[in-house]
């Protein structure tokens, strides 16, 4: 098989991987959450497995090209002048964010309607007919779910709707469709790990998130400096 066909196969496999990961992540989080609530205590781990699958898929998507198109931080332009989106990518970002806004708004509205109905039922006669968030863990799971969907919906849209990748006609060209945006990955990983550490170890989720994000950003800047020194 020719090298070009091999490269194209890799490109399409990458795109398919992104599609599967984004869909799995979007489905696995709510399923995991529902199972954690619905299953008896000794079977809660099944819900945990779904949450782990969602997290794994999320971290697979973080360094992807579609994530870069959806969320390339503007701050990167100050660090790296070549790191910018062109008009097609900006157009795709607008479409992805518009789609995500519509879907997220509908989900929030549906959630609020559920809460209003649940509160109404609880007041009337049958409090057990509607599950309602009662403890901190429930509310945190909802908060994480909202964050998760805010980040994932534009990525999922782009994974499915971006035009199929094109191979450059220069021999020996690298595959650009899956190029890694390390800073995004570091910052978002730092944010998530910081949030988790803040909640469990330090006792303050916001401080943990802030520190994690800052550390991810600084680590990337430090590595960029090292690379530039090596090059020079």
């Amino acid at each position, binding site marked *: 098989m020719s090298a070009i066909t091999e490269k194209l196969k890799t490109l399409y496999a990458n795109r398919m991987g992104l599609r599967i990961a984004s869909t799995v992540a979007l489905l696995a989080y709510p399923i995991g959450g529902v199972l954690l609530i619905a299953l008896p205590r000794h079977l809660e781990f099944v819900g945990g497995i779904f949450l782990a699958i969602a997290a794994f898929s999320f971290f697979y998507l973080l360094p992807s090209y579609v994530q870069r198109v959806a969320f390339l931080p503007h701050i990167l332009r100050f660090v790296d002048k070549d790191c910018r989106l*062109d*008009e*097609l*990518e900006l*157009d795709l970002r607008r479409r992805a964010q518009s789609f995500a806004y519509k879907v997220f708004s509908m989900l929030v509205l549906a959630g609020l309607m559920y809460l209003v109905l649940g509160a109404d039922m609880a007041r009337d006669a049958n409090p057990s007919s509607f599950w309602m968030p009662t403890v901190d863990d429930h509310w945190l799971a909802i908060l994480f779910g909202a964050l998760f969907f805010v980040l994932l919906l534009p990525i999922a849209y782009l994974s499915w709707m971006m*035009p199929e*990748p*094109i191979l*450059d*006609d*220069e021999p020996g*060209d690298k595959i*650009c*469709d899956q190029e890694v945006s390390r800073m995004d990955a570091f910052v978002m990983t730092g944010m998530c790990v910081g949030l988790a550490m803040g909640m469990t170890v330090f006792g303050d989720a916001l401080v943990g998130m802030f520190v994690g994000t800052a550390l991810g950003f600084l680590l990337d800047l430090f590595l960029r400096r090292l690379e530039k020194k090596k090059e020079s």
Partner: protein
Amino acid sequence: MATEIHNRIALFRAERGLSRKELAKAVNVNFQTIGYLERGDFNASLELALKLAGFFDVPVEGLFSLKPFASIAEITRRQEEQERSSK
């Protein structure tokens, strides 16, 4: 649905012997964008259309059109017919 805009970017690029990456660098876009333009997946903004026309040194309507461009074979055949009729 957006109107389909036809272009001859691939033809001009091949004529100049340029890769997508080289053309992309000249007009300051990602090389994939040039590929998507050539394939008709994406319509260029006016700014990019003017940049491309300027780069190839042709009027913008020579590079982009709302109607499909005639093929090279068709153009050659018409030219030959014109030459024959003028003789």
